[in-house]
């Protein structure tokens, strides 16, 4: 049996405010649908509306027709795992931390499909084997990499063999190589004749999946059609922006004119618990240049950055800063903007305290806010009430107010949607040029590194099983 799903006129409202307006699409077996849009565009609400997990206080109208039957407003619990499957976002959080991988697959066979335990376990292991996870089947989620977790989740989805599969941001938090792996896995599910709906902000995923694409903006579907036509000849402005924002589509930046060295490192070595992470690294950052620090996760990128800032102490080696610079002029921009602000303080308090601490005049911030398009209304909100992009811009303001000479940007765009990501990257580049700022940008995105930075430094992987420690390979 195969399923087809038709969504028509789906509207979700909170109070009088419409969060989703008139969304429509059709999914058929073998023709996957990808909903593309940035965070906050309402993609996840659509998934929740199909699953039947919308919060009770939201009102929903329209039709969600599964195989000719309108299921909206019915209790869909009985369909879960039988007709509708879900591939969760961030599977390393969605897998039970205290249960081994095979158990989490096998229980689907036992409790959903009613097989006896012995067969359920066998089938569970078979699913993992298919996805190349044989070795991982007796491990706990925390012992698996992000990509492996994603594949375990896929094995669970495959075990249920639901006709309809929903994938909610399946590549969130994964680096580029893993992203393609996941997209291909999903493609394979669709090719096996399942109906697939994928939600993502990653254009590349949409390209791999093919089928149909719907582009969402502010709760409305602004463009809908076959993947080829939407992605290659977009009609809506927003779709075009989205496509342009992908780092691979960026135009390479003008190289900057670096000046003297702000910070240099010689022979840096650091190990944690006996495992070397950084070994004998030399590095110079000049004023007015952007240097990209590339490497897969676990290669010691952030460690190196934190060593430079003095947040960690090296086991060996030395760090020299340009003479006469106050330590305050060495700053950092964080990967996850909300966590870089105290959750209970309004942004205004944070800036007021900063002004008070350093005897600064509030006036000094005003042009910065203007420059970063941050309206004063945002100041009285708490971090939880601001978007990642807004917070990251506030973070840049905060750092710039201290007139830094060196900024460590630790994956500053990885948690942002593509358009904001581009905006922040552009800002960093501009600031380096204008203020003669030395920027060390930690990233795992090769395209971004190539297009943004004057120099690229790549650290080798230092996976626990690889004996070679991280080291600099190729200064570009």
């Amino acid at each position, binding site marked *: 049996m195969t399923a087809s799903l038709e969504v028509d006129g789906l509207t979700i409202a909170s109070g009088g405010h419409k969060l989703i307006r008139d969304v429509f699409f059709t999914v058929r077996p073998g023709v996957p649908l990808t909903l593309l849009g940035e965070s906050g565009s309402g993609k996840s609400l659509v998934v929740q509306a199909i699953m039947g997990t919308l919060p009770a206080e939201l009102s929903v109208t329209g039709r969600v027709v599964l195989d000719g039957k309108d299921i909206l407003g019915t209790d869909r619990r009985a369909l879960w795992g039988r007709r509708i499957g879900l591939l969760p976002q961030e599977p390393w959080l969605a897998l039970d931390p205290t249960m081994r991988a095979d158990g989490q697959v096998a229980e689907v066979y036992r409790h959903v499909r009613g097989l006896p335990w012995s067969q359920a376990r066998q089938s569970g292991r078979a699913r993992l084997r298919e996805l190349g996870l044989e070795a991982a089947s007796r491990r706990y989620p925390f012992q698996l990499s992000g990509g492996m977790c994603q594949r375990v989740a896929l094995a669970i989805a495959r075990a249920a063999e639901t006709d309809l599969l929903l994938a909610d941001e399946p590549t969130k938090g994964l680096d580029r190589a893993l992203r393609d792996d996941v997209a291909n896995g999903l493609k394979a599910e669709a090719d096996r004749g399942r109906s697939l709906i994928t939600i993502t902000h990653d254009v590349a995923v949409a390209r791999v999946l093919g089928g149909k694409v719907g582009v969402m903006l502010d709760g409305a579907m602004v463009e809908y059609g076959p993947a080829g036509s939407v992605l290659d000849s977009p009609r809506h402005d927003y779709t075009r922006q989205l496509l342009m924002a992908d780092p691979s589509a960026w135009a390479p930046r003008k190289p900057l004119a670096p000046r003297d060295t702000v910070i240099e490192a010689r022979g840096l070595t650091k190990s944690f618990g006996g495992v070397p992470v950084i070994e004998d690294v030399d590095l110079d950052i000049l004023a007015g240049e952007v240097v990209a620090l590339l490497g897969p996760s676990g290669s010691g990128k952030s460690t190196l950055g934190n060593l430079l800032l003095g947040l960690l102490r090296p086991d060996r080696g030395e760090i020299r800063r340009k003479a006469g610079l106050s330590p305050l002029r060495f*700053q*950092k921009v964080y990967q996850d903007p909300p966590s870089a602000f105290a959750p209970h303080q309004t942004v205004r308090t944070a800036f007021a*305290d900063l002004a008070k601490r350093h005897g600064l005049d509030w006036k000094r911030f005003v042009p910065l806010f203007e420059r970063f398009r941050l309206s004063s209304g945002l100041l009285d909100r*708490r971090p939880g009430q601001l978007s990642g992009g807004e917070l990251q811009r506030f973070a840049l303001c905060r750092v710039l107010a201290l007139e830094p000479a060196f900024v460590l940007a630790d994956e500053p765009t990885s948690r942002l949607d593509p358009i904001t990501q581009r905006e922040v990257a552009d800002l960093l580049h501009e600031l380096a040029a204008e203020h003669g700022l030395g920027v060390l940008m930690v990233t795992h995105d090769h395209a971004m590194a190539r297009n943004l930075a004057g120099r690229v430094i790549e650290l080798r992987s230092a996976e626990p099983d690889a004996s070679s420690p991280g080291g600099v390979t190729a200064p570009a």
Partner: protein
Amino acid sequence: MTKTKTMTFTFSRRRAAGAALIGALALFGTLGPAVIAADPAQQDLLAPLAPPGGDYLLGTDHYGRSLLARLAHATRLSLGLAVLTVLSAAIPGTLLGIAAAWAGGIADRALGIVSDMILALPGLLLVLLLAAFAPGQFLPLYLGLALAQWVEYFRVTRATARTLLSRPHVEASRLLGFGPGYIARRLILPELAPVLATLMAFNMGTAVLAISTLSFIGVGLHPPTAEWGSMATELLPYYFEAPFHVLMPAAMILLTVLGFHLLAGEDRS
């Protein structure tokens, strides 16, 4: 940590009810002794265990003393002792906890060992030994309870502060030039507040109950001092003739625990 907790101290209906309850108790304890004419030590051996109503609003105890007057005096003492004990334990415990988490290294380990030792020492031993120095007096009971309780705050604070200190916003604040004082006051304490509030609410009750336990085993305050725990203990033998009298001080303890719980806010999850 994708969800950010907001620590607004909203004055919910629950909190308002808690504050009202504690306020009423505090008022009863402070004004009661002045307003109520009856002397809490005045006995009438011919009218013991009078039921509520009649000459005495809440009846009399086993010596024919006014229960209302005694409850008012007891409220002042018990509530005061509970608040004093909890504050004396919470303030140093929290400060040391933050200091240990901040300093790390040897200082942290040393404080950790001290707290472990105090936990391993039976709390009862500590209180009883202190009480043996000055039997019947207020100070040793208070000291003993505070000494036994501070460890709890220390451990909770140290554990929470340690994770907080490793969070990016704290690291950012250090890079931005803020000192330990600011970080402790403005960044750590507000995050700890809900946990500490719950702990303190619980310990208010624990302190009152601990004193009642002590008076049960004969280590109470000098007579004729009125205090909830000893009132309940003294009236216990009359549980059948005057059950209401035994329950009155118990009810006061209940109201206190309830009030502080409501005041502390929602259960943390």
